[in-house]
Every structure is written in C-alpha cells, then in structure tokens.
C-alpha cells in the first residue's frame, strides 16, 4: 500500500498529492509517469510524475478532477493509502544542452513540464515559458517556473490574466519577433499540441510533445496505447509518452482518446461515477 503524505488543492479543479512509493522515487526521471489504482475495484489510471524526492521516497502527482478515479483521489486524506502505484513507466525525456528552449504548457501540462525545465535550467539552458489556461484561477506552477529564472508569458481564454487568446498567439509573436529556439517542448491538451506543431513544423523547429492515450497495463502488453509516429506504430507507455511532435498523427490520437467517452459518461449517469 502507498501512503498519501501530503495533499494540496491548487484550484477548484486541480489537486496535488505526494505519495510514498520507494520503488518509483529512487529511479524516476522527468518525463516518466506512474499508474495507480485507488482500491481493489479501481481502474488503472496513469499520471505524470510532477516531482519526486529520493530521500523521502516520495512522488508528487498533480491531477485534474474529471471522472471517477480523480474524484476518489480528491476525497482521500493525508494518511490514507492507495492500493497500487507502479512506476516509473515510460522513457525519461531526452534533454540536451542547447542555447534556448521554449516550454509551452496548456492547463495541467505545466505539471509534467516543470521537472523538465528544472533539469534544463540545471544544465544551463535558457528557457522561455508560455502558460495557457481557461482563466487566471486555473494557472498552476507559475511561481515555481519563475523560481527557476524563466521568462514567462501567459494566455487565458477569458483574458483574466496575460493575453486574451491561445498559447499559439504568443508563440507566433515570439517567432515574428525573431527569437530563435533550438527546440520546443509542448505539453497540454491534444488540440493545443497539434496547433503548436502546425506552427513549428513548417519552420522545422524540433518539437517534443507528451501524449496521453488511454492505457491499461503501461508495460507494453496490451497495445491499447498505440500511436502512429512517422510510418511506425509506437506504444506510448514504453516508447513514449514523449514523441517527436513533427511526426505524430494527432488526428488518430484524438480519435482514439474518445473511445470510452460514452461509457465514462454513462457510468457517471447510472451512479457509478461520483459518490
């Protein structure tokens, strides 16, 4: 069993949880993820490792409350225990020492982006950050990025903070201003990552994206997480979750992510969803 050591509410939809998980904490790297089950009847649900502490043997996850599992997580308290917590899964990010990197985070995407930018900063890389979100309330980790000495721009849908518009509006601005990026890391909703790649691809700016297809085992056994990258089929749980965004077939990923939309909604309606 895996004890919940700490918990914080970041905003009305997003929470942070610190879990003791020795096997995950001692080897995990930025870019990797875990799969957890809240209880014996639970689904296996993946979450990115947002932070870790090797000495305390803890791992931090940040989740958005969207369905049953995340609702149960939200109802749990410090001292409660999760039934299963396996990882680290997936490949670590391939971070290179470059001149200047642009990190783009949409909503919750700031969570997986943060440990990568921290590592890049440790390597001496200049990092600019664009954070996009519905409104000011849903911006997370802004202060943490500032603490790393990054240059931050913000876009919100309603204009409550920063520019009113999308992260891609800021991206275009920066490119028009003539800022040269050696690479871009974009993590957020699929639509956002697709829009970013639509801009960076013609300019041939290397762009890494983090995909979150539906997963079961997370060990390469079921193939449910398969995605098309270039002319190859890759399993996101073992070959990813990060891929060369310029080669990803986003339309396919978006289609496959909707497989269980009806079922999840149905379970909510018949009362299996929220308790």
């Amino acid at each position, binding site marked *: 069993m895996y004890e919940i050591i700490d918990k914080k509410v970041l905003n009305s939809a997003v929470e942070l949880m610190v879990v003791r998980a020795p096997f995950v904490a001692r080897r995990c790297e930025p870019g990797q993820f875990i799969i957890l089950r809240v209880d014996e009847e639970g*689904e296996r649900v993946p979450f990115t490792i947002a932070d870790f502490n090797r000495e305390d043997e803890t791992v931090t996850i940040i989740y958005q409350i969207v369905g*049953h599992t995340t609702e149960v997580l939200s109802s749990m308290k410090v001292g409660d225990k999760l039934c299963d*917590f396996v990882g680290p899964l997936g490949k670590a990010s391939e971070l290179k020492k470059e001149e200047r990197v642009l990190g783009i985070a949409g909503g919750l995407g700031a969570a997986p982006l943060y440990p990568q930018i921290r590592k890049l900063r440790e390597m001496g890389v200049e990092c600019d950050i664009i954070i996009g979100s519905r409104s000011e309330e849903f911006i997370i980790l802004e202060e943490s990025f500032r603490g790393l000495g990054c240059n931050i721009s913000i876009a919100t849908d309603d204009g409550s903070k920063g520019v009113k518009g999308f992260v891609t509006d800021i991206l275009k601005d920066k490119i028009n201003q003539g800022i040269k990026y050696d690479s871009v890391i974009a993590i957020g909703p699929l639509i956002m990552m697709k829009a970013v790649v639509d801009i960076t691809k013609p300019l041939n700016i290397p762009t890494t994206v983090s995909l979150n297809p539906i997963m079961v*085992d997370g060990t*390469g*056994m*079921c*193939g449910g997480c398969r995605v098309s990258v270039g002319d190859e089929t890759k399993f996101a749980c*073992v070959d990813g979750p990060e891929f060369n965004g310029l080669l990803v077939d986003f339309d396919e990923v978006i*289609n496959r992510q909707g497989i269980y939309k009806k079922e999840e909604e149905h379970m909510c309606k018949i009362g299996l969803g929220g308790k």
Partner: protein
Amino acid sequence: MANMSLHKVEMKEQDPKIRNQNFEEVALGYTKEEALEEASRCLDCKQRFCVAGCPVNVPIPEFIQAVLDEDFLRAYEIIMSENSLPAVCGRVCPQENQCENKCIRGKKGQPVAIGRLERFVADYVMENYPDKIDKVESNGIKVAVVGSGPAGIACAGELAKKGYDVTIFEALHELGGVLIYGIPEFRLPKDIVRKEIKKVTDLGVKVRKNVVVGRSITIDELIEEGFEAIFIGSGAGLPIFMNIEGENLNGVYSANEFLTRANLMKAYLPDSRTPLIVGQKVAVVGGGNVAMDAARTAKRMGAKEVYIIYRRGEEELPARLEEVHHAKEEGIIFKLLTNPTEILGEDGWVKAIKCIEMELGEADESGRRRPQPKPASEHVLDMDTVIIAIGQTPNPLLRQTTKGLDTHDWGGIIVHEDTMETSKEKVYAGGDAVTGAATVILAMGAGKKAAIAIDKEFTR
C-alpha cells in the same frame, strides 16, 4: 481387474446455450465416484509411457493408485512433488499432446483422463483440507524471480521448498501472469488460480507487486542488492499486429487488451469500472487458444455474431481440439482459409473488415501447407469490433535495460538448455520469455529446471 471401458468417464459441462451467456466454468469436474471409476481404467503400467509425455514428469500411475485407495491427500502430495499448480494444469494442459497422448489405453479407445483426475485431486484437497504448510528453514541465500506467471511461480516454489529466501517481482497488481490476465474465468476460475498460487507463496516467498524490472529496478541493481541468483520469467506479452490499413481505428483490440480488460480488470462483471466495448458483430483474427478465448469472451459479453477468421484450414487450427469444439458449440462462426487485408472505418470506428480467400499450397519448412491468396476473392464483412489474436513475442523491456543479456533476433532470451542460464552471470530465464508463446506446463518445467540448477550452484 482394470475397468476396460474404451471411453473416458464423461465430465459434465454446462449446456452450451446457457454457458455462452455466463462466465461460470464450462467443465464441471468429476465427482468422487466418477474419479474412482476413471482411475480404475489405469493399468498401472511398468513402462510408464504417460509419465514420459508429461513435461514435468508427474508420477501419474502412482497418484492414480492413491486415488483408487481413496487417499486423496497422498495423491495430491505425489502430484505436488513435481507440479505445484495441479488445479491449473488439470484444466489447461494440452493433455491430448502430452501425458494422455502417450497413455497405453489410447492405443485402443480413449486414454486415461489424466488431466481430469489431476484436476479432481487438486480441487478435492483444496476443498476438504485446510491449508497445511511445512515451512522450511531458511538458508539465507537471496534469489529474485522476475514475473509471476507459471514459470516464475514454479521456480519460486521449488527454491522456497529448499530453503532459499525468494522474492518475486511482478509488474502488475496481481500474481499469475497469463493465468490471471489472459485465460478467461469460464476456463480457469481466478479463485482457483489465487488459491493455488497462495499455496506456493505461503512457503515463505516474498512478493513485490507493482515493480517493473528494468524500470523500477534493473537486473544489475538486484545483483548489487545482494540477490545471488535471478530468474527471469517475464513471458511473451508483446502483441503482434498485422500492419494492415485501419488497424488503429477505434474498435480494434489486441487479444491481450481485450482479455486483460475482461479478466484482470473484471470488465466481464456488470459493475466493473473498466469499460470494454464489444458491439454486435465481432471478428477475431487468428486460430489459436488465444483467439478461441477472445471469441468466447466476446460472445459472453453480448455480441450477437462472433467470427473466427483464420488463414489456414480446420486441420491447421493451432488451438486445442477441445477449445475449438467448445467454441463451435457456443455458436462461434468459423471463417477458415480467409485472411483480412484491410479494416474499414466510419467516423473513426470499425465498420467492416475486408478479407481475401486463401488456398493451401505446398508444405513449408514447418511441414504446414502455406496459405496463398485466391485471385479476385476479396469480400467485405460488416463488423463493429476486430480482435487481433495472431501471436505475441517477448516484451523488449528487459532486453533493452539489461547489459550482457543475449537474445535472439525475434526477442527470445538465449539460455543454456540444461540449466536455463543466460549469457549474463547469475541470471537464469525460462518460460515464454525464452521459447515464445508456448504452454503453462512447459513454462513451469523451465522454472523448475532453473531452480534445480540454481540450487546445484550453491550446494556443490
């Protein structure tokens, strides 16, 4: 005088029309009277052909004589001396190619129903005798077992019996490998698998679930942590796809995903949290045990029409005869000498499958006649779901993360056949990870062989 009936005592089964709508076990097992009657067909041969046919050499005539004496506990102990999962093997061993294939009674009439008797003994003892365990004193030598399928369980059990301090590392949240996530409830009830595995772990085996060796900890780190030998029984879990157009449409599953959702994640129960969309018309591509299990599961989950699409003929079907027979009784439709060429979609979902008819040509190296497409025989079948069950290969994770572990091009770990030693010092391997997809009993045999070799290393 032995009972000279030419036929096995029949084992009762659920009616096909009822059972194809539930997940309860199909075959119901022998009663004590039926077991005694069947046991009396054994001739207690001097030349034990049957034993030679069993990959782990279960002392078959000896246990059957104990059954005749109605000393079921002794029968159980005799079986357990060579096979630590008899309730599992009695159900899923391909006996017709192994022990029963060699039984002298099979020369004229049917062989002795060794598998059914093995199952009876295991079930009877599990039901009637409370767990009794003889723990062995520890010798303090630490051994790690990677994977808890039949290979890992057999290796761990054998070493624990000899006093080794064994730890099993398993990636998933339950022990058992394919026995838990692959083979369905109606063929192998999970309750029985759990009970039988518990008997092994109760010998003092430590269990670490949720640990993916290669990611959570590497083989080299295990050695640094003081494990003096390591057995890899990580199976052949990587699904093969066909690489045809439309394979990534919604509604296309690998058999592994379909069966894992149904079994491990219990999607077969109405209140499961894990969804599984089955639809009305399901095509299962492939002709092995895995394909039969997927098809029969789909039928039970409510599909109206379930097809097996296989590119060779009836004779070539690699599945056990009994499973093909059960599938047909349950209404599975066989489209043989047929091969899919494309999966057609609409709005991102499977709509139909395009197939071509095949005919059998010359025999290839394996002696099987090679199927070839018949010209101008393409046709389209409407489907909601396609399940790909054309095979699995070993998962590449351990190969990629372990320096000095030699593997074949197709992914199997290379071992020394007598000892199951790999190219890496202190590391042994066995089961599907070495042979590619095979059988439960071969995996168990390999695990046991490695345990004996490991023990030799420390006792010489």
